[in-house]
């Protein structure tokens, strides 16, 4: 479904991605792990063109998204993204946050959008917070709303950029619960994370990035039991 061919990204002289090539199948759940500064987030952000790759080609469902002629705004509507710092719209209530894009972008009526938002709030367990403002929510609640907001656009792919890194420890679980539910529903997902236990349990594939390269790509059992590269071994020694 996602085809990445030799993607590089440089910021000035700094090479962040040094040629990444991989394929993600429909329904596959990928956990992207690696040391800080290894290019995990940049890789994820290249997939929906929040960062434009310096070189290389990304094809999603046959559409070459790195082609300048592609309507990237319309294309992004098919890919949801959840950020480390939630990025909820602070001047809108929770339900308005969720309803905004479906109404403004997809042209849903207010009633349709509201029904959809209510169902999603139910799904992330926050139906009672519909009319609250984001400033009234805990970090875990904010992140669950952010997930609901992305899902409201019916994306085919979901990208998660360190979704639990900014949370207090006791809130990590509630967010991971939602991710697990989503993974088992068959959503194609890429998750940049430091939660090794979660990666091991929920992911189909582990991507291990280091210094801008995709060093290892394997099922969790294989990766965590018998890492091939020396770098992955050292990394796992440190984090486990």
């Amino acid at each position, binding site marked *: 479904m996602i085809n990445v061919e030799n993607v590089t990204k440089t910021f000035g002289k700094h090479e962040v991605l040094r040629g990444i090539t991989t394929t993600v199948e429909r329904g596959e759940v990928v956990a992207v792990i690696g040391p800080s500064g290894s290019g995990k987030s940049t890789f994820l952000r290249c997939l929906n063109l929040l960062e434009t790759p310096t070189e290389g080609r990304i094809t999603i469902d046959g559409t070459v998204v790195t082609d300048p002629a592609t309507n990237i705004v319309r294309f*992004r509507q098919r890919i*949801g993204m959840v950020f480390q710092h939630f990025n909820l719209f*602070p*001047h809108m209530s929770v339900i308005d946050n969720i309803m905004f894009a479906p109404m403004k*972008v997809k042209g849903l009526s207010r009633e349709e959008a509201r029904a959809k938002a209510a169902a999603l709030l139910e799904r992330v367990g926050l139906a009672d917070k519909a009319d609250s403002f984001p400033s009234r929510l805990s970090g875990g609640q904010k992140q669950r709303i952010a997930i609901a*907001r992305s899902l409201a656009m019916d994306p085919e792919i979901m*990208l998660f950029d360190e979704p639990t890194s900014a949370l207090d420890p006791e809130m990590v679980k509630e967010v991971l619960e939602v991710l697990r539910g989503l993974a088992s529903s068959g959503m194609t997902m890429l998750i940049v994370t430091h939660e090794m236990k979660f990666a091991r349990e929920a992911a189909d594939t582990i991507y291990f990035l280091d210094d801008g390269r995709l060093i290892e790509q394997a099922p969790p059992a294989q990766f965590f039991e018998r890492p091939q590269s020396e770098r992955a071994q050292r990394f796992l020694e440190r984090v486990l």
Partner: protein
Amino acid sequence: MNLYKKLCARSMLAVLLLLAVASLAGTGLQSIGLQAGTATAAGSDACPGKPLVMGTSPDYPPYENTDAKNGGDIVGLDIDIAKSIAAKLGCKLEITGMDFNGLIAALQTNRVDFVMSGMSVTDERKQSVDFSDTYYAARNTIVSKKKNAYETLEQLDGKRVGVQLGSTQENAVAGLKDATIKKLNRIPDLIQEIKSNRIDAAIVEDAVALDAIVANPDLAITMLPAENAQEGYAIAFPKGSALTPAFNEALQDMDASGEKQAIVEKWFGKHEAVTAGKHTIDFSTLNGYTSYILRGVFVTLLFTIVSALLGFIWGTVLSLFKLSTVKPLVWFATVYTSVFRGTPLLLQLVLIYYATPQLTGYDIPPLMAAGLAFGLNSAAYLSETIRGGIMAVDRGQREAAMALGIPYRTMMISIIFPQAVKNILPALVNECVALIKESSLVSVIGVTDLLRRASVVQAANYRALEPLLFVGAIYYVLVLILTSLARLLERRLRRSD
């Protein structure tokens, strides 16, 4: 960049609409404030198909002044004579008020057909314009405080003496020895200078001086001997105007029939129009003028709203230019801001007012020129404020909107802008407060705003402090109302915190 273009086109449209509203309002106000028309059949030889336009400086009662107590028309001796002549020629008359200093220029550029404004014939003026026969000869008087009154011109040697700039009284003081001569634009200002002890006496012509001392019982006048009769007041025309002989004939008719004498008697000795003040500050002298002044609130507010909206919309567009990746737009916005912040607002105002008709042929109404100048100037400042506000919005907001596939324009309008405005609201209120107060500058191009009305009333009743204090209080109240409204708005915007 299509989105940019669309955004710009919409904003331009909004600006044009605003200007249209301003110009409509401008013409509307003019017909309330500045023009008096006498309806007679148009279309004689003197005025083929259009009204005769008369220029005058309505701050010189009883010759001409704005009748602030009744509707704000321009009235006076000169006006009555002009109406009578226009009627004799079978013409419609239209009266335009402007500063005395601008009258000759108005004749030379044919903005007016003739000028009657208590204007004396001088050799200097004769080089630029034609004059009719003199229609009235006034005598000079010395106005001073009662407790040091002066009997003769010679007694003014070594004193501080005031005259009106550009008046014939300048000649009268030319022979004084060692006297300090102070020349001011308007007679009411001279009177105020005497009361403030900044000058010892002023040379003023008789009819005007009489009004002034009725309003100010602490002043006294001494009549000076009559000068030769050629030095009286006359009607001025553009060089070579065909109107000059026709007007002379009409003046002779009025002389012969006694009509002119009747008009002179009607206006001289009509001092009941002026209220005598009993105290140093006596607000009863404002009786009858308050509604005229209060109508200035409407002008000031309209002007402030038009320029604030124009400034905000155009400033927003400029701030988007500055944040854009298209280099020419960035350069344009940067140069624009630098020029409009780097030159005085008053200069921009006067330039727009005078240059527009000269460059485009469009006779821009004063209120519209003012709204344009203030809006364009304010936009330069606001563009920086708004740019700062947009940049202060968290980057993540933009990324979240982009990730949801929200188009640029929707993102700016619904996501980024509301948060930016909330951040910069105090700065926006500052700008509006500044606009309300700076609006007083527009009186220089003849917009009858609050401050202009105060000076009109000062011209009519020769009391400076009362009208000034009164409009000062009005400005203060306006600013107070504005800031309270802003506080309410801010509280509403902060409800999400």
